[in-house]
Every structure is written in structure tokens, then in C-alpha cells.
């Protein structure tokens, strides 16, 4: 039997030890009216058959030259990352409840927390959340808990990824929190700090600051942070982790630094995989530590002074605090943090910086190439990291379809004539030339 080791003899011996005569007897407590037959599923395949099926299906998927970002980013993943991460000892372990038998996972998580804290410039980190968007929702809830204000208004700039905004709204919808939209400078593609005065005195509990923002544009995080702190609001930075090798970390924004930083860890060694699994990271200033959601690992000792690691501050969590927990999260994205930790160790500070710089460089190159094409214009004037928005003088839909025929997935359509384009270190000069040449050809054709 697939994956079941029992022989016929085992079965009989065990039934007799239990003192029943058949497997049916094990289910005697289920009311007869509820008993069912085995479900009718797709026919069972052996491993050979399922391997062939999946091989064929995988063969159909992907394979394009892709320039989409919008929250998930293609980066080179060193082979060592997943060869180690999928080792059975990491892969098939549970949440490290028995610390002494889980030092592998626990130490990795401790190192992970240290790296995330270091990257974001903050003092503490949890051990992961589901994804960047749900981490942002947890950050909002956390900020509300941290605040002593009576209101529960949170400022959310329109430059935040709309998927993140929707997720926040859906996850915190029942908590009586009001999300106040903060508008942005339509020329620059980022928030004009001067425009924030309109939100002053609004009693915001917190504001979110995306960096880089959804349009790839770099926000003036210092001014935004100082403004928010001046309003007595906490600052939640939603950041791209790759960019942090290059850009000022949230912990250093403005005079006091962001209070909480979060984001999607996918760029740190996690495959695109049609959308998941990724992981959310969340770090904060030490003063907010007791409000942090999710698991946290701490260093401790045994009786003989040997160092070891344990899950700690569990009193915040659902299995102890139940309805009063800081979050309902239990299973998080543990294995993804193993991969990210190995990724960051392999890249190191200079390697990660090179990834950020190469991405920036490539996006500058592509930006220049594309905007040199008649009918293609840059939409925003702000500085960008590895994404930017172009406006086309014809329907984006049609252009995308044409490029698709050339094997190119050109970007994320923002509306009928705008396209969000992303380039990372994975693209060569030839790739970018291929893209711009194809686009040029298409744009030079008359409208159809």
C-alpha cells in the first residue's frame, strides 16, 4: 500500500491486540448515518505515472523572458540554497516545540532574525509571517495595539501595492480600523511630503511607507517618517529586502527610525512559483517587542551553560493566549526562512549590494532603451529602483499580446495605457535589447 508499511500479518496481529475483528470496528463511534465510501477521485497513479504527468505539466509552464515585478521578483537563486533547504531534517521537521531536538531549525531562525534585523536596521525580528501583504496587515494590527490613541486610523498611501492594500483591508476588516488613503504626486510617482499637511491632526495611529513604492519610485522616507512621528503616529515601512542592501534601512529613516518594518521575503532566494510559498518578514524597535505577532526564537542555556535556542515569548501566541493572542498565526513559512538565511549568507553584504546595484543598473538601461522608442514615455519623474512605469500611445493589451508572441512577458498593465516594468540582475544586455527591439517593431506598426 502506498506509504503504509503494514503487512497483512501486521494488520491481523494489531487488530487482535486491540481486540476488534476488522478495520471497520475502529470507526464504530461514527454514527452509521454519517459513514461514507471512499471518495471518487481521479484514478490513482503510481510514482512513475504521476512524475510523467507533472513533468508534462511543468513543461507547459513558464519559459518566457519576463519583466514583471509588482511584488514578486526574479533573482538568481544559488543552487546551494535549495539543495540544503530541502534536506529531510529541515523539510520534514515540525515547529521546534521540543527545543533540544530542534536546534537546527532554531539556530537558523535565530540567525534569520539577526539578518532581518540587520537588513532593516531594527532591533528585533520575528521568525516569519505568511507573506508580505499579510505581514503588512499584522503590522497595522500591531501598530494599533502599540498606540495609546483612542482612534484606529491608519494612513495608507496610494503608492502601496494595491494587492497589499486589499489584503490589509480584508484581514483587518473586522477590527474597526479605518484606512485613510494618502495621495501622491502624480508627476513624481511618490508622496510629496509637503502635501501631508492635509492629513495632520487626523489622529492617525500609524502610517505605512512603501520603499520603493508600487511604481518602483523611491519615497522621501526621512521626511515622511518625521512627519508621522510629529503627528504621534507610528511608522510602518513596507520594504523590498533586496533594495535594503543599497537604500537606507527603515531603522534609520528620519530622526527616530521607522517603528516597524515588514515586506515580502521572496526576493531573498525564494522561487517565483506562480505566487508562493513566499514569506513575510517583520521587524521592529525593541520597545514594541511584546506586541510582535508570530513566533520568536531566543538564545538561552542548559544547566551546564551550553548555548541553545528556544521558541520564546510564547505568552503572546494563540496556543497560550487564545482569543487574546497578538495574532492567530500558528504555522508560518519556516522553511522559506531557512532558504532566505542561506541565500543571505551566500550573498553576504557585498553580494546583496551587487544584486541591488545590478538590478538598478539594468532598469536604468532598459528605461533609456524603451523610452527612446517613439510612443513610449516615462510616466513618473521620481528616482526608481528596479521598476518603472511607462505610458504607451496605444492599448497596452494589444502590445502585451504581441510581445507575448515573441516570448516576452513585458510587464504588469496598470491601466489601459500604462505598464509597470521590472528588471533585475537576471537580465542580460541582449535580453533587454531583444525586448526593446520587439517593442520598437510593434510600436512602429500602424494601429490595428
Amino acid at each position: 500500500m502506498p506509504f503504509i508499511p503494514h503487512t497483512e500479518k501486521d494488520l491481523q496481529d494489531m487488530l487482535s491486540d486491540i481486540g476488534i475483528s476488522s478495520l471497520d470496528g475502529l470507526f464504530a463511534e461514527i454514527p452509521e448515518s454519517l459513514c461514507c465510501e471512499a471518495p471518487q477521485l481521479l484514478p490513482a497513479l503510481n510514482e512513475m505515472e504521476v512524475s510523467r504527468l507533472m513533468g508534462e505539466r511543468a513543461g507547459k509552464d513558464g519559459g518566457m523572458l519576463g519583466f514583471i515585478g509588482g511584488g514578486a521578483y526574479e533573482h538568481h537563486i544559488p543552487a546551494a540554497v535549495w539543495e540544503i533547504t530541502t534536506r529531510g531534517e529541515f523539510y520534514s521537521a515540525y515547529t521546534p516545540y521540543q527545543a533540544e531536538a530542534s536546534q537546527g531549525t532554531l539556530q537558523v531562525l535565530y540567525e534569520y532574525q539577526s539578518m532581518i534585523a540587520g537588513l532593516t536596521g531594527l532591533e528585533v525580528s520575528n521568525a516569519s509571517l505568511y507573506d508580505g501583504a499579510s505581514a503588512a496587515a499584522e503590522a497595522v494590527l500591531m501598530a494599533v495595539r502599540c498606540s495609546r490613541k483612542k482612534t484606529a486610523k491608519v494612513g495608507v498611501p496610494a503608492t502601496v501595492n494595491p494587492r497589499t492594500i486589499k489584503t490589509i483591508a480584508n484581514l483587518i476588516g473586522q477590527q474597526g480600523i479605518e484606512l485613510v488613503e494618502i495621495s501622491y504626486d502624480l508627476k513624481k510617482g511618490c508622496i510629496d511630503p509637503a502635501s501631508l499637511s492635509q492629513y495632520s491632526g487626523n489622529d492617525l495611529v500609524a502610517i505605512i511607507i512603501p520603499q520603493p513604492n508600487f511604481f518602483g519610485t523611491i519615497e522621501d522616507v526621512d521626511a515622511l517618517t518625521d512627519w508621522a512621528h510629529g503627528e504621534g503616529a507610528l511608522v510602518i515601512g513596507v520594504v523590498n529586502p533586496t533594495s535594503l542592501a543599497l537604500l537606507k534601512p527603515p531603522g534609520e529613516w528620519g530622526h527616530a527610525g521607522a517603528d516597524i518594518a515588514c515586506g515580502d521575503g521572496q526576493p531573498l532566494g525564494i522561487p517565483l512559483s506562480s505566487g508562493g510559498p513566499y514569506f513575510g518578514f517583520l521587524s521592529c524597535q525593541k520597545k514594541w517587542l511584546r506586541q510582535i505577532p508570530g513566533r520568536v526564537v531566543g538564545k538561552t542555556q542548559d544547566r551546564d551553560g551550553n548555548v541553545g535556542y528556544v521558541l520564546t515569548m510564547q505568552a503572546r501566541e494563540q496556543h497560550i493566549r487564545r482569543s487574546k493572542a497578538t495574532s492567530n498565526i500558528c504555522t508560518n513559512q519556516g522553511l522559506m526562512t531557512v532558504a532566505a538565511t542561506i541565500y543571505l549568507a551566500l550573498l553576504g553584504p557585498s553580494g546583496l549590494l551587487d544584486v541591488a546595484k545590478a538590478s538598478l543598473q539594468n532598469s536604468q538601461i532598459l528605461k533609456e532603451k524603451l523610452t527612446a522608442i517613439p510612443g513610449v514615455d516615462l510616466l513618473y519623474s521620481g528616482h526608481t529602483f528596479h521598476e518603472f512605469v511607462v505610458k504607451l500611445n496605444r492599448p497596452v493589451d494589444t502590445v502585451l499580446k504581441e510581445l507575448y508572441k515573441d516570448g516576452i512577458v513585458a510587464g504588469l498593465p496598470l491601466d489601459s495605457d500604462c505598464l509597470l516594468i521590472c528588471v533585475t540582475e537576471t537580465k542580460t544586455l541582449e535580453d533587454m535589447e531583444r525586448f526593446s527591439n520587439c517593442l520598437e517593431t510593434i510600436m512602429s506598426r500602424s494601429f490595428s
Partner: protein
Amino acid sequence: MSGDRVIFEEGQIGRRSNHQAPKVMVDCDLPQAFLRSRPPPLPEVSELQVVRHYTLLSQKNFSVDTQFYPLGSCTMKYNPRVCNTMAMLPGFLGRHPLEPDQTGQGVMASLFELQEMLASVSGMAGVSLSPMAGAQGEFAGVSMIRAYHQKNGDTERIEMLVPDAAHGTNPATAALCGFRVREIPTDENGDLDIVSLKGAVGPQTAGLMLTNPSTLGVFERRVEEIIAIVHDAGGLLYYDGANLNAITGRTRPGDMGFDAIHINVHKTFSTPHGGGGPGAGPVGASQRLKPFLPVPMVTCDRVGGEPVYRWLNQDDCPDSIGQLSAFMGNIGVLLRAYVYLRMLGGAGMRRVADYAALNANYLLAKLTAAGFTPAFPNRLASHEFILTLKPEADNFGVTALDFAKRLLDYGFYAPTIYFPMLVPECLLIEPTETESKEELDRFVAAMVAIRQEAIEDPKLVKEAPHNIPVPGGGPGRLDETQAARKPNLIWQKD
């Protein structure tokens, strides 16, 4: 050895694995004000150091691949390696979530079929795969219940009933969904206290969250009556599917009358736990809750006889509670569940429950015969069961925690301890269907040996673990109190 240091301590300033770094030709032209002033404090180590460090660390874990892992409620069964290999095929890994559906027909066919098969196993009318774990599945389910009442203008239903034995995520989720949580007690046979339930339901009742078999390891025999009580009061029924492994192919939550259910694929469908995730928590809905399922979901159109798969979004499902994460859920995990389900088929799913129950009841019988005390001596075990070590604690001063730690020395992971909280000094033991009789017999022998130690040399047990079988031996019992009192959460250069 390397595993004894943290990776940062392996570093040296200027050490670089530059075959991993891309070539940078032009330097960054961003204004200084945007930039980081110091490099991030990441370790500077060689690739060999990284490989050696994390390989050695991995060896310091117990895992299903290396040890029997009878962790109750967690279903630590064998995670077939082929599921991993298939989910890691380059075609699947390389696709961006926002690419056009055309480039994802392979993965989407699999997800669509998974939706259908999970609906069939659970007896629900529809399934959405997007929740990222059990707790998010619960959130989706409870949100659907809330949305349903709201759509019906039933806004006074502000209370969610939760058995006292429930997993912590149940009350935590109900609270996150804006409900007041009301606990319903359990009777001495492990069943929900029906009298209390009757007293608790009313016009304020939004619903009841039930795990069946419950976390006590027994089947809730009066489930039909419970469901009728709640339904009659206008509430809906939520099924926590963490224990579905106990009943697949034997009975279906949908047939019992549940309105919403989540499924931990990282339990019943054998996707790996990964040391704490990622899992996936697909959510199922009865006919009346189906319109509220979270998006996205996959649908299948037929174009010229050929199936064409497409994502359904909020526009397609206006009543949906919406998306719960940025993209489509933990696709890679779901692919693993799909492969697993394809290898088992319907008959295989029934065998899962049959042999999970067989192993649990066998272990229960053997341990009882060896003198241990079952929490519910008159009940059949489901796929798991509870022992109480209260006699041992009272007589020899050796607690469930001590037994757990000593089991590690014997090369077994420990059962779940002190959950559910109702049973004093409890061990919640779940062997799963993939363990052999021999392994169970060895576990019984270890339990018996430890009790003997508890009698003869209690210090040995109370100070366990002593000789954890990992390279370097592992630390002795770790001080959790100290860790929580003075949290040391990140490494810093001293």
C-alpha cells in the same frame, strides 16, 4: 564544529563568494540621502562555510525523515520525496504569479483538480485553495460566516462558540474576525457538553467551531445533534480540519452538516512541515457559503473541447471575502498535496484513515496494557489519543515534560504535551499511518523503560535529555524561563 557557532562568527571582513554576485558595470546614481551609509551586518563567509554550517545544523534536528515523531495534532507522517521533486521542476518554479494564464496551464490544471478532489474528500460544495495555513483557513471560514450573516442583515450575531478543548487558533481567529468568543465545556468522556451548548446558543450566536475528531483524540459522537442545535439557533458550523486524517474516506464534514471547513494539507495531505511551515489551509464551503469563498480560485472553461484554466477574482465572485494574501496562496505546497492525492486516489485516502486509526488504537492498547493511563479509557482512539501521566507525576514526581525530554534520549521525538489543557500531565500521541508496527513496539518499550527509570532513578528522567543523538550531542534541557525573561533575539558582535 561549525554548527556550534552562529554563521556570523564564521565571517571575516572582505570574504566574498563573488561567483554569486552579478557583475555591476555602472555605479548607482541615486542621491546620497536615499542610500544606506553602512553595509548591512550580514555574515561574510565562503560558500563552503555556508554549506558546512547549514548541513551540520540540519543534522541537529529530529525530523520525520530521521525519527519517529508522534506529535499529536500535527500528523507527522512521511512526506513523499516525489512531491518535492515534482513541485521543484523548473517549469513550475520559474513562473511569475502575474504572468498571463496561458503560461500557467500546467499548474492551474493541477490546482483545479485539487480543488475538486478536496471538495470530494470533505463533502463540501466548493473549495478555495488560497489560505496559507490552517489558521488562515479558519480566518477565511469564520469570515465567510460573518459575511453570510451580514449579507442576511443578521448583524446581531456577534458570538462564536468554541469548545474549551479547541486549538488556540480557533478562539484567536474568532477574535480576529471580530467575534466574542464563548467557550463550551467538554464532558468527562471527551464529548462536547450538550447541555452547556444548548444553554449557550441564541440569537447572538454566529456559529460554532468544532474539531472532529476533537483535539482529545475522540470522535464527537453527537455531532449531528450539535449541528442541529446550532443550525436551529441560526448559527453556522465551522469544521477545523486539522484532524481530517482520522476520517478520510470514512465520513465527511460536509455530510455531517458543516458549512465551512479548513484543511491542513500539511497534515492530511502530507506536505512537509518545514520546521514550521509553509503549509496551506484550503477552505471548503457548503452551498450557502460558496459565494463567499476567498479569491482567487481556478475555474475551467472548455474551449473547443480542450480545458482552459483561468483565475477567478473578486470581479467574478462579488460576494467573496476577497484575497487574503498578495497572490494565489502557497502554490508550491498545493502542488505537493496534488501529487500526493494523485498517488493515493480515493481508496488510498480511505486507507489513510484506516491505518492511522489502527496505529493509534494499537499503541493505545499496548500502552494501556503496559500500565499507562488513557484519558478516555472507554473510547476508541481516533488517529491519536491521550495518556495522562498524572499517576506517574503523583507517585514518582516525574512529569509529562520529563517523559517528553527523556524520549528524546531514546531517539524519539516527544508527543504533544500539555495540550489540550483539560487533561493534566497529558501526552497527545499520534503515530500516523506511515509508521510500522515495529516502530510502535519500540516506542512502547521506551515508554516502559522510562517509567522504570522514573521509579528507580527519577533524577535521570527529570534532568533529561542527556544524550540526544545528533552530532555534537545537543544541549541538555534548555532554560525557557531565562529566554523569555531576558530575550536575546539577535546575534550581536561582542
